[in-house]
């Protein structure tokens, strides 16, 4: 579910590794993400976290099959997974002492957007796509996602994303304050360069 690497002193890479589901955040992934953040938070030797997606997409958001009506998971497990999700996206990510750099390519949708809001730097590939597609399925975007997007953008952008369900490209995400830099090449490479520069300070 997660690919965790510590390739050099001070740096930790966290990769969403569920490529067959476009890195949708399911039960196991959200539990693993909370766990690694909890463990990393008190590691003084880790200065920078780089978060990315394996397989061409950052994350397509929450896994609807796991968390919504058709879920076959037990109520107890779902309750635990929901609590973990609220923990990392409402509190834990915001308290991390490390610099957080997100490298985005492909889809970055719905439940993945609070990760961008908690990042100090967001590097996005020029072909990346951002959005809140919940309304297209007759759902309402989670309030935590709405709040996070509202903290990154203005109310016009928030209304457009939430009500239309349309996706925007990286340049628009840059204009709307969701992205720091748009790159032509692999965003992970750029993120690693930035991370190494930060660690050497």
């Amino acid at each position, binding site marked *: 579910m997660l690919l965790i690497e510590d390739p050099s002193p001070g740096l930790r890479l966290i990769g969403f590794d569920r490529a067959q589901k476009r890195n949708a955040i399911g039960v196991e992934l959200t539990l693993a993400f909370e766990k690694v953040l909890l463990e990393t938070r008190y590691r003084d030797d880790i200065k920078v976290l780089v978060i990315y997606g394996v397989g061409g997409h950052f994350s397509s958001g929450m896994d609807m099959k796991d968390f919504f*009506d058709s879920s076959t998971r037990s109520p107890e497990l779902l309750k635990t997974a929901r609590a973990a999700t*609220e923990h990392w996206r*409402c*509190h834990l990510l915001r308290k991390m002492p490390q610099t957080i750099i997100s490298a985005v390519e492909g889809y970055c949708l719905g439940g993945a957007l609070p990760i961008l809001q908690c990042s100090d730097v967001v590097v996005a590939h020029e072909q990346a796509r951002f959005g809140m597609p*919940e*309304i*297209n399925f*007759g*759902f*309402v*975007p*989670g*309030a*935590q996602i*709405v*709040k996070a997007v*509202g*903290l990154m953008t*203005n*109310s*016009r*952008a*928030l*209304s*457009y994303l*939430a*009500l*239309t*369900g349309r996706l925007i490209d990286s340049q628009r995400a840059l*204009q709307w304050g969701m992205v720091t830099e748009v790159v032509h090449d692999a965003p992970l490479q750029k993120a690693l360069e930035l991370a190494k520069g930060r660690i050497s300070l």
Partner: protein
Amino acid sequence: MSEPVARANVEPKSLVQVKLDKGLMTIRLGHVNNGYLWTLELMDNFCDLIQAVSQNSDVRVLVIESSGVDFCKGLLTSDFPRTSTNRDPNVRTTLDRFEQCCHRDLALLPQPVIAKVQGLCHFAGVQLLEGCDIVFAAEDAQFIVQGQELLLMSSDWEQKSHKSQRLAGDQPKTYVTRIENTYDTSEAQRLGLVTFSFLPEVLSQEVETLAISFCEKDALALQFTKETVAHVPSMTWDASVNFTAAKFAELKSRQAGETSTRATAVASFLAGKTKPGKGA
């Protein structure tokens, strides 16, 4: 269909013209007889219409546009004499009502509201745009903020409660009266007044495409999404979690065709089947 909407539909010379087609309500403001300037009657008619629309489930989306070439060419001076310093009760009552309509009623409508802006947009129009969910504007549109008009339209400027105050900066009244700023569409986008800009020749098509897409979405989910967008940004993180839980449960229940527990209980009480504190 509620009365004000029906009346407007059969009155093509009205200052507020309305067309409803397959859930898409188009509202056209202004009339050639007034040189397309906005009047007290226009503002009152608009407020009446918005109140009626909020109860009308036939309306799935609103598009607000001008019947002239300019979205808002300005105010009719005979209706809004600058020398009155706005103490005329008739003027003040309508302006306060219009302000409430723009800042509150439009935002709380269950339907999405799209504004289509072209040509000039004076401050009365800017105030209306603040209550719209999505603003599509022509690339050559111009937004004009003139100090005296701004103070005329904003009854409690000193309370610093207006979204539009960002257009004038945090300035005292004495300074604001001297303001005469014109913003182009790209600056209006940067300020968060406009969502997207388009070439003038494709603006209508873009608005129509978006409006039709809203008609195809789940109306209840759209209403709840609007409420979420309106209320959540000012909540704490923990409150937003509770809000989500409540909204998801209500949405699931109502999409399944069930009424709320409260509504069922009230209906039961009114039918004489339940007594307070005694249950069924």
